[in-house]
């Protein structure tokens, strides 16, 4: 590694080292090795292959101040949804804002409560899926998270959990920030619906590792409603065992710089995943990046990726989607599409689909399209008395709603649709 990168990496972690809680031995060990791994990789720089389309500068500027002040509550699509909320304020678990976490079939532990050296189920997962994801794409900021995140939640699911679990991350101020690490294990044949909800300002690096055992079902939804000044880097690392299923969908309606990195290992036969995301960020130099990798390791697995972005006024949308099919993973069915609407000449959409296929009996397709709103369709709406602004918003909703169709939880789907309608003043 060049000296410049090494120095920058050392500078970055020098701010973080002091805050470590080392009371759990196995955790301390993983963190220590991860710190070394981080220094080996070094922080991402603009010329790295993974960062050619979106600058890493904002994501590298770690800021972990906590203000803990009250903030103005933003509207939420999930207000009326029956759920169990786990709230982090500036990276710190807030018991007052959270629901009672005792429920049948679910065990919830805060990461900073794992103090004993005795065995904890998360020991076998923590950092492991993140580490495996590095084989496909380099993600040094996820290693940083493994090494330094002090708070987060560990959730073990041992039954079918009907009520969604909402992880809500609120940053109250521009200079507040957080590093959060969650680990979720869904035991054989069980089901969970997990919502990740981002609100407020600040800088955040939030990573969730998810282990789905045989025949487990995971519904995941990520909702970002952040301010223009925010910088939000999220990681979702999933390992799917035999016949398990992940359905992950996302909507970003606000953020300054946002990068969602998703890595799925299809590590059991007949497992499947669908990953989708819709975004319509604000005006100005916003960045909305989805970097996805799907690793087909076993035969007869299915993966599906659907991403849709609306770009306007200097905003940049990025989609990087990689599908790797190992030699053993015969009969793989992989699908990927990314599409963008550019509302004006200054909005940009950059896409990099990649397929790496080492098996010979697979079906994999990918496509990427971007363009302006169709003039003929716009005229059709106007010729029915609908003014141009409203007509455009109707077409934006219609465009994004293909992603909403991917949400299999109908309650969440309806809430997201009506929230987006309101957001677009429809």
């Amino acid at each position, binding site marked *: 590694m060049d000296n410049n990168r090494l120095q920058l990496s050392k500078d970055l972690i020098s701010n973080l080292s002091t805050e470590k809680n080392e009371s759990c031995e196995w955790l301390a060990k993983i963190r220590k090795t991860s710190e070394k791994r981080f220094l080996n990789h070094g922080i991402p720089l603009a010329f790295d292959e993974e960062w050619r389309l979106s600058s890493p500068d904002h994501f590298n500027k770690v800021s972990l101040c906590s203000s803990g002040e009250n903030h103005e509550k933003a509207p939420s699509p999930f207000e009326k949804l029956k759920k169990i909320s786990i709230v982090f304020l500036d990276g710190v678990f807030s018991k007052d804002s959270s629901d009672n976490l005792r429920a049948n079939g679910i065990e919830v532990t805060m990461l900073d409560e794992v103090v004993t050296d005795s065995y904890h189920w998360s020991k076998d997962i923590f950092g492991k899926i993140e580490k495996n994801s590095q084989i496909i794409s380099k993600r040094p900021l996820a290693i940083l998270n493994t090494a330094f995140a002090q708070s987060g939640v560990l959730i073990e699911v041992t039954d079918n959990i009907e009520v969604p679990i909402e992880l809500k991350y609120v940053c109250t101020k521009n200079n507040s920030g957080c590093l959060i690490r969650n680990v979720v294990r869904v035991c054989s044949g069980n089901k969970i619906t997990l919502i990740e909800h981002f609100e407020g300002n600040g800088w955040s690096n939030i990573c969730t590792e998810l282990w789905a055992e045989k025949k487990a079902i995971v519904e995941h939804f990520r909702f970002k409603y952040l301010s223009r000044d925010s910088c939000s880097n999220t990681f979702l690392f999933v390992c799917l065992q035999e016949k398990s299923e992940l359905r992950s969908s996302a909507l970003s309606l606000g953020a300054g710089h946002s990068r969602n990195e998703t890595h799925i290992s299809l590590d059991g036969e007949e497992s499947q995943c669908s990953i989708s995301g819709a975004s319509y960020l604000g005006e100005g130099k916003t960045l909305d990046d989805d970097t996805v990798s799907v690793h087909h390791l076993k035969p007869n697995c299915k993966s599906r990726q659907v991403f849709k972005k609306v770009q306007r006024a200097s905003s940049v949308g990025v989609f990087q989607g990689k599908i790797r099919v190992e030699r053993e993973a015969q009969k793989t069915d992989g699908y990927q599409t990314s599409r963008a609407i550019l509302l004006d000449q200054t909005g940009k959409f950059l896409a990099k689909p990649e397929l790496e296929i080492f098996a010979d009996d697979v079906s994999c397709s990918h496509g990427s399209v971007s363009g302006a709103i169709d*003039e*003929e*369709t716009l*005229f*059709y*709406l*106007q*010729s*029915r*008395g*609908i*003014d*141009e602004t*409203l*007509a455009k918003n*109707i*077409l934006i*909703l*219609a*465009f994004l*709603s*293909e992603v909403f169709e991917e949400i299999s939880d109908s309650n969440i789907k309806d809430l997201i649709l009506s929230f987006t309608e309101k957001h677009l003043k*429809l």
Partner: protein
Amino acid sequence: MLKINDLKVKIDDGAEILKGLSLEISKGEIHAIMGPNGSGKSTTSNVLAGKPGYEVTNGSIQFLGEDFNQLTPDERVVQGLFLAFQYPVEIQGVTNTNFLRTSINSVLKARGEGKMSPGEFLTKLKTKANELGISSDMLKRSVNFGFSGGEKKRNEILQMAMLEPKLAILDETDSGLDIDALKVVSSGVNSLRSTERSFLVITHYQRLLNYILPDFVHIMVQGKIVKSGAADLALYVEKNGYSEFLS
């Protein structure tokens, strides 16, 4: 009601399509424009509806005394114009019912009238849809998405029936219709005929005019009207073709 005077229009890349079109339509009248391919019939309907991509270089369009050329397409609808498209557009992700509700409420709002109540809207929609043989399934589906040619045209007439325009332009509404669909569409149009409402029917063939009987027929050739007459002019053209009007 509508007064077009010596209208010259070119498309954005420069070719002149309308070369001095004049036409006057009064309240309650049905006018038909017939003409060969490329004579400017569809351009006429597009320009009247305010479609972008055309430049008016001369003349004027007045609708109820107002200079139409200054208005956006949606403002023209608020004034009472309706264009039934030759090729209705498919809009995936917007249901037919939501589309109609937004359309009607937009027009009412722009006219300074209150929104239609959901109950009133649905009753009206159901009645009009029944008359046109439009199933409730079609109302729930995305606008025109996967509709047959006949279903799309019936959907256009449904929109017209809901919006109750003062002047409706039917742009080649008969194209792509079999005889049964043509009858349904025509009776839909005829049920909207009134002394207060005018129609401009644009067509290649006389066939449609058997079902929608016009008061006046105009022959359009090379961007202007070269002959006007009563309904029997359509029969004459059907028999003799357009060749005698081509100079």
